[in-house]
């Protein structure tokens, strides 16, 4: 039927430029020499004006990294990364800006194009009063701007690039850095420990409820550059913070490496809510280009009654290897993981979580929604474990997979380990397919192919979207529809 053919053509044409963040910014960059060596690490450390202990920490990590093997247990396949062929440090040539006026206008334009507000003035003047979000913008290897610093510091909240925190709050950083994800945790985390260049540092003092959402926006711009950011968030006793990260990168034919480490520490009665909207360039329809996203994220519910909640909407990256986890050390602590992972084209996702129950009466909840379209592969991999002393531990897990089309795959690999008899673990999993009959039904009522898919998918992910801060939920919903454009027809 001609109408069907037209639909297919239209969908194809959308598909080609569906990644609207694929533009490139041209500015003068300063880079380290290509590849990794002690000299490169010294160069990065010197650029950051780091104290001696930090350099020693990095060099130690590098030594250990050289003895480690890249993990191969994930259900992903890719050409080996040539670690000698990457720039580990790339930064805009202009010196770090003290105010927005000093930032390279090209960079400001970049963030404007991405819809990230770096001009807090406008927000304060009431142009968009409802959207009060403090942003740390990380461009390749460095943080280029952090907004609302003054207002936050009035509340005692520290929110700054981690490179600054290392200089200004060395005791805090020393105490917590690597305390959740040890230097030798895994190949990618160890590499990150050696070469990380920037990222955000957050400290919420006891009893403080952070007065606004904090967010970091990561942008990889430079060619052949890896991004190795490091985020450390500490919520002291009885405090609360909600944090959001977003990520994009230009379209390129080569694969680019992103190996981040995020550590969260929640002390007694503290709560951290960490949301991610990940939209790295996924590569083209034939699997050319795209970001390798090898990320270690872990939260430590160190204090009693503490709570850490991860919410992620993953639509980008050629390969995702990512398991945001919670260590439930404090008694009565709680961990949550809400995830939507969308894969289309040739994307490969291996993602999930670990809930490690160590304290008494600890609870955790996992809701994972995987949506696979195109020729993609989407794996949920999760571990729920209860230690001998974790009496009364409880977990509820629900993993649902939705398949669109017949060339994609969905896989669920749950591990459950319990070393005490009082633990209660529940696991539910479903796999479903958008049926042609459902599609036809929706179309008969007037919805286009795309609208019908979006509606059914949104129904599928609703429980997770509800966990995101309101404004981001709307963005995430749009993002999901865009990622799935061209997946039916």
């Amino acid at each position, binding site marked *: *039927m001609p109408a*069907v053919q037209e639909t297919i053509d239209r969908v194809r044409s959308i598909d080609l430029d569906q990644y609207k963040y694929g533009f490139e910014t041209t500015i003068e960059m300063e880079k380290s020499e290509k590849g990794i060596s002690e000299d490169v690490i010294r160069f990065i450390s010197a650029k950051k004006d780091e104290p001696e202990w930090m350099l020693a920490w990095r060099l130690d990590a590098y030594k250990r990294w050289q003895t480690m093997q890249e993990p191969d247990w994930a259900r992903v396949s890719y050409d080996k990364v040539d670690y000698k062929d990457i720039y580990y440090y790339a930064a805009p040539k202009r010196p770090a800006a003290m105010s927005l006026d000093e930032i390279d206008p090209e960079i400001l334009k970049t963030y404007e194009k991405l819809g990230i507000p770096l001009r807090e003035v406008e927000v304060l003047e009431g142009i968009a009063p409802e959207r009060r979000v403090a942003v740390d913008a990380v461009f390749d290897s460095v943080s280029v701007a952090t907004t609302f610093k003054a207002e936050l510091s009035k509340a005692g909240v520290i929110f700054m690039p981690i490179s600054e925190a290392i200089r200004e709050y060395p005791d805090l950083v020393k105490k917590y850095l690597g305390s959740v994800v040890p230097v030798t945790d895994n190949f990618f985390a160890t590499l990150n420990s050696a070469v990380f260049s920037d990222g955000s540092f957050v400290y919420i003092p006891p009893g403080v409820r952070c007065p606004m959402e904090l967010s970091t926006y990561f942008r990889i711009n430079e060619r052949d550059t890896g991004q190795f950011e490091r985020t450390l968030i500490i919520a002291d006793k009885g405090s609360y913070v909600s944090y959001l990260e977003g990520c994009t990168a230009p379209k390129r034919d080569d694969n680019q490496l992103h190996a981040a480490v995020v550590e969260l520490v929640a002390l007694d009665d503290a709560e951290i809510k960490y949301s991610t909207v990940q939209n790295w360039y996924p590569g083209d329809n034939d699997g050319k280009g795209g970001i390798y996203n090898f990320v270690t994220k872990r939260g430590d519910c160190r204090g009693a009654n503490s709570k850490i909640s991860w919410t992620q909407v993953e639509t980008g990256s050629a390969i995702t290897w990512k398991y945001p986890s919670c260590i439930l050390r404090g008694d009565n602590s709680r961990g949550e993981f809400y995830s939507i992972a969308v894969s289309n084209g040739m994307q490969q996702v291996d993602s999930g979580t670990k809930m490690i129950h160590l304290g008494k009466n600890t609870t955790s909840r996992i809701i994972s929604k995987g949506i696979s379209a195109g020729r993609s592969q989407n794996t949920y991999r999760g571990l729920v474990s209860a230690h001998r002393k974790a009496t009364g531990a409880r977990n509820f897990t629900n993993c649902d997979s939705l398949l669109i089309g017949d060339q994609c795959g969905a896989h669920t690999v749950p591990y459950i380990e319990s070393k005490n008899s009082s633990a209660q673990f529940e696991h539910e999993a479903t796999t479903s397919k958008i049926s042609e*009959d459902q599609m036809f039904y929706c179309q008969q*009522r*007037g919805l*286009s192919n795309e609208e019908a898919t979006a509606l059914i998918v949104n129904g599928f*992910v609703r429980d997770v979207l509800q966990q995101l801060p309101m404004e981001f939920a709307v963005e995430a919903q749009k993002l999901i529809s865009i990622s799935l454009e061209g997946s039916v027809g």
Partner: protein
Amino acid sequence: MIEIKNLTVAIEDKQILNGLNLTVNDGEVAAIMGPNGSGKSTLSYVIAGKEDYEVLDGEILLDGVNILEMSPDERAASGVFLAFQYPLEIPGVGTMTFLKATLNAQRRARGEGELSTPDFIRKVNGAAEKLEINKEMLKRALNVGFSGGEKKRMEILQMALLEPKFCVLDETDSGLDIDALRIVSGGVNALRAQGRSFLVITHYQRLLDYIVPDVVHVMSQGQIVKSGDKDLAKALEASGYAEYRTGEAA
């Protein structure tokens, strides 16, 4: 007005409709009766544009325009509505969300503005009340966990909201008890109007006691073989389909 001319349709190389001709005038309620396997459901799916069917010949004109050239959603926007025999469940999608999305999609396709939320809610509440659909039901995911009767009432609610020009009811009476049949028929009768025509597909005369047709057609082996007024349905109920079954396999 709907005019079906020489409609010839196959599915998986098996010809189901064999040069079918049928006209339904504006404001007319036409019933189609016929034995199992005569092609009644195929006809309803081909009108609505389901993909699996191959149209070998013929045309379906809605007010002179051949809808066979259109995608299912385009047909819907131009006024074709099919009340499904087995309405589909859409998990996680609230009934109100679905109703609003479809209504606005059709309005957009016709170049009309979207309905404001208060106007939309008023419209739904008014129509729902007539069909004895309570607010609780509207809060649930579309058709998920609905009884057979609830699903059919939901179909008629959608019909009432979308205000189609041409409504096809595919065995809407199947699985309904007497009370549900009364409510559903009442809903359909309330929608009978000058510019709107209906094609009511059924096995049983019973439904036609409630929705009284202007014309009755008998279908067999993919063709209309006999037409008459409402008394034809009554005659069929008495004699059965035996005389129309010749050559049927099952």
